[in-house]
């Protein structure tokens, strides 16, 4: 049996000091298999985004261990964590989808440029991805010339352009109307399958969560327990 994509044991994370300290996660366990699409649902403030940030190596747990594809990430230095994010992890956020000074193609190519890929090659690969998300004709447009749905599809293209193994999405459809949300989610699902990704998607939309392989429902009571799926 292959290594799980994500194996978290006893994760703890809190914010603040002394009396104002809030424990967001405590003794949290989670395992996500390779190729699995996991939806994380739960009320606001329960720690969904914190979990995603920990999985995306944007933050370090106060306690516990996190393995991604068999590698213990606890010992990774700042530069190595940045390299990991660039090479193995793709992010889609609810806000700040695209950089306003760059065209859609340049935005989509950005992870490759960060990785040191030549501009021409990066733009070619970004163009391929934009075609897959149906935005080939909008490649030279700037973000303020795109609709919300188009921006989020562009963000999805950017998240996948460097060929990551793990896709983390934080409320990717939170800013979209129902039709656009369904379009973006369907696209996400399709790319997940075609690219054999492991995906963790935080969402408040239970209908969309239902289309995932597994749902992790987080409540205030169980953030200290096992991250069991339903």
């Amino acid at each position, binding site marked *: 049996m292959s290594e799980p994509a994500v194996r978290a044991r006893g994760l703890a994370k809190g914010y603040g000091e002394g009396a104002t300290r809030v424990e967001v996660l405590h003794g949290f366990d989670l395992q996500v298999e390779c190729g699995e699409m996991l939806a994380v649902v739960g009320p606001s403030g329960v720690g969904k985004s914190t979990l995603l*940030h920990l999985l*995306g190596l*944007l*933050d370090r747990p106060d306690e516990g261990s996190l393995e991604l594809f068999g590698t213990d990430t606890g010992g990774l230095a*700042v*530069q190595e964590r*940045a*390299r*990991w*994010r*660039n*090479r193995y992890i793709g*992010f889609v*956020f609810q*806000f*700040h989808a695209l*950089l*306003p*000074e*760059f065209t859609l193609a*340049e935005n989509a190519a*950005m*992870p490759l*440029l*960060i*990785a*040191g890929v030549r*501009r021409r090659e990066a733009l070619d690969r970004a163009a391929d991805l934009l075609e897959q998300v149906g935005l080939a004709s909008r490649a030279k447009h*700037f973000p303020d010339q795109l609709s919300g749905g188009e921006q989020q599809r562009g963000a999805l293209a*950017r998240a996948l352009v460097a060929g990551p193994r793990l896709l983390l999405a934080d409320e990717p459809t939170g800013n979209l109307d129902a039709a656009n949300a369904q379009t973006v989610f369907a696209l996400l699902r399709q790319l997940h399958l075609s690219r054999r990704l492991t995906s963790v998607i935080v969402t408040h939309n239970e209908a969309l969560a239902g289309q995932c392989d597994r749902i992790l429902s987080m409540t205030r009571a169980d953030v200290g327990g096992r991250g069991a799926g339903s």
Partner: protein
Amino acid sequence: MSAVTLLTGRWLLALRRRTHVGAVSAISLVAMALGAMALVVTLALLEGFQHTIRTQLERGGVHARLVPARGSELPGGDWLDELRRRHPDLEVEEVRSTAVWCMAGGLAVPAELEMVSGLPRVEVNRVLAARLGVVPGSELVVATPQLVLTPLGPMPLRRRLEVAVVREGRPGEERGVVRVGEELARVFQEAGRRPQAVTLQAKHGRDAWRVASIVQKDVPEGVEVLSFRELNRPLLAALELERVMIAFAVALVMVVAALNLLCNLALVAAEKRADVALLAAMGLPPRAIHRLFLGLGAGVGVLGGVLGTAAGAVLAGVLDRTRALPLPRGVFVVSHVPFRVEPEAVMLVLAVSFAAALLASLAPARAAAQRDVLQGLRYE
């Protein structure tokens, strides 16, 4: 092209997207360019006036002076003839001087009488002319302190002379000087006196600085060679001090521009915190974020410095060529405000603008690189 270069360039030149960062970059750029321009124009103005003074000095002044190392007279022998023979391109004048009193218009002032070989007329310097109120054509009475016996008893030796020329005189000269030819000088001076000094002047003013070194090997022991620099040390030192102090004072404009840049970069860092966080999430490491903001500052410094320096150089050149700023005749030796752009000044301004911009970028760059990515992602 790396991501950092692309980001730097785009954020620097994002005006066409009319983003806040573009406006802030443009303000910093204009401030830096104006600072560089002000510095170039000021240095060109300063150099214009100083060059005029130096040129006047080179053209009209003594380029080297041979003085006795000991005593009041130069050693005898034919070394002076030999010096003339070896350096035919140098004008060699023997100086024999005597302290005298000069009188005109009821005024009497002490002065120095200099004998200049071959001088056919009587010349006075501006100092003496101003003290006595004489002009070319005026009469001047010269009297020596030595007494001569007359039927009326011992009297100072006096001669009535007509002033032919009022000379500019040596820069910084404070004594009144009367210059006369050999024949007239013999009346006042003891016969057979050796010269007290020899002045040397090259045909071209630009050679003034090396006359001393050229003749050094041809003078005998007991003769000291005072170079052009030594002869004009106080004035040249004052000019240099003036240049340094004014350059320093005007360079403060660049400091103000750099502080403006610092504030603007801090604004950009705050404005772009969400974008920077997004880039960090995509894998841009803190070192690259640091480089990105340093690049922004350096870009503003280089671009602003180059544009401002070029504009300043062009403006100074146009003002000089068109003689756009006239000066009252008779008060200044030049008819217009002179500007002179030196390559060294241009390099200095470019270096100052680049260094100031880079220094101003350090703090915002460090702050941006150390900023919490998660706070940036939550920032909306």
